[in-house]
């Protein structure tokens, strides 16, 4: 393939990459079709996990969120019925219980290490879980 064709193909693909809708099943990827930016080497990239809600969304939502395919929610529904499917808003659970289950795990629920969630962050998560919807 000569250089001119290579350049043309690269430019064409780049144009399509930035201008085409993605056609994904839920549109999640098409939202990012904007000007690309790069992160220079050495830049720190912590995720903003400062509130109970941010922590819950990052660590818990994929298992305990609403909607189909959520293993934690499915298990809670199987064991305790539909009304207890979602953990969010469960003020009947003591904070210490929530924190112990996150730290130590419980059967199908995986434990989370101190390097993943600190004790201070656990307090925030437990408060958020127990807060009204």
């Amino acid at each position, binding site marked *: 393939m000569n250089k001119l064709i290579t350049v043309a193909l690269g430019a064409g*693909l780049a144009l*399509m*990459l*930035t201008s*085409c809708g*993605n*056609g*994904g*099943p*839920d549109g*999640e*990827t098409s*939202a*990012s*079709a*904007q*000007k*690309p*930016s*790069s*992160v*220079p*080497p*050495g*830049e*720190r*990239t*912590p*995720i903003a996990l400062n509130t109970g809600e941010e922590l819950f969304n*990052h660590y818990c939502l*994929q*298992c305990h969120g609403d*909607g*189909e*395919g*959520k*293993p934690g929610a*499915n*298990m809670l529904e*199987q064991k305790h019925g539909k009304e207890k499917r979602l953990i969010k808003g469960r003020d009947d659970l003591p904070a210490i219980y929530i924190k112990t289950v996150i*730290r*130590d*795990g419980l*059967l*199908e629920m*995986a*434990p*989370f*290490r*101190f*390097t*993943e969630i600190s004790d201070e962050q656990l307090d925030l998560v437990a408060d958020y879980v127990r807060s009204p919807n």
Partner: protein
Amino acid sequence: MATTLPEGVSSSDFDQAIREIVKIIGDEWVFRESDLSPYLDHMSAVPAEYRMPSAALAPADIEQTQAILKIANRFSLPLWTYGNGKNWAYGGPTPLHAGYLVLDLKRMSRILEVNEESGYVLVEPGVSYFQLYQHLQDIGSNLWIDCAAPGWGGVIGNALEHGAGYTPYADHYIMSCGMEVLLADGSLVRTGMGAMPGSKAWQQFKYGYGPTLDGMFTQGNFGIVTKMGFWMMPKPPMYKPFMFSYENETDLHAVMDILRPLKLNMIWQNGAVGEHIGYSASVLGPRSDYTNDRAPITSERWSEIAKDLNLGVWNFYGACYGLPSNVEMQFGALKQAMTSVPGSRVWLEGDRAPDDAGWNYRAKLMQGIPNLTEFNLVNWDGGGHLNFSPMGPMSGRDSTKLYNLMKEITNGYGFDHLTEVVGTFRGMIALTMVMFDPRDEDAAKRADACSIDIIQKSAALGYGELKANLRYMNTVMDCYSGQDNGLMKTLVKIKDALDPQGILSPGKSAIWPSSWKHSRDN
């Protein structure tokens, strides 16, 4: 709680070592006694306490890790390196032997570089798929990640364990480019182009000059990988997920023979994941949704379940990527070939119910959107699960033979057979999960025996295991005994040269230094 010490280390030496480590990384990053519970594995066939570590250490950076290595060498402390993910089915974060210290690298979680122009990232071992995906979304990147099915997995850890994802960049080690590795003596090495000061292509070209070292730092214990580059797939102009379903258990033979030339010619671009209905059903509901009988679910019942779920007994997921006209042309070829089996059906976006968790999570994974839907498998029958990946040629004959073997062994021990076959570039993995309730002592014992049978009987037919739970590392390595144990003899020579005391993850993949005087059981 009494501390289980590493074999051969006195209590006074251990306490002295911990005091010195505390001075380096701070007391808050040294975990002892009751704080060690999140480092245990409750989902395996042996009691979690069997592998109770003596401590867990979480250094913030390379310098702290180097300082820990000095102390470990002085006091002969075995460090079990662990990165980010959960690693359930393979042992979790727990070490091979009780008394080892876990070296938890989670705090090293920087995404050091995202290069849009060349399509790569450079990350540290604590970076998860969720973190990398979120970061790329936040900066408006046009790069896709390729993730394992559980999105909490570690980008580096998964690649080092030869893990795979679901886009065309699915083979994570093949798609890696450049490592930085800390050796047991504290020295640092960069592989490939990274060895040259001022190199401008560390993440663009794998080889550099001289022997290529990267592979020896995977699935072993020769070093601690502290940085690793990965090629990222640019988001394609078009993405078209699909599924082909088949009515009969025996259709596997014909389908795999059809699949092989499609994979060889890269018409089927990503990994071809063929779920048996058992695998599909377990993502959608617990065992009790399908049967109350404790006996393994029969082929006849699986067929009924497939009909109830509007699925096939076999369900092959894949996707096309690229320019729209190419995608349609490729899909046309795939459809023509894959639907030549009588009773086959084709499913595209919008064909499944909107709340079909099975289709939805596959469609996400095949475009690199991490999620945890597949973890529903763990709800099948009590949470215990062990994964096995015997590898064979991608052919109808071999796939059928391996599938039947997996079914015969698991059913023989009283378990359901939950299997998916995955077509790679040339080979085929018959991924099989042994699901059991770890609270049931008898079930755990059967799962343990079943696991050993899967490894040994597969190997006897020429199908080698690719990964192993801690419990079965020796069993798997025993199968790779050709040329008068040539592989193991070479690995031991390397271990003796790089880590003669066995400081780094001793026993990982059954590799120990020749001087090791302690237990080699697992």
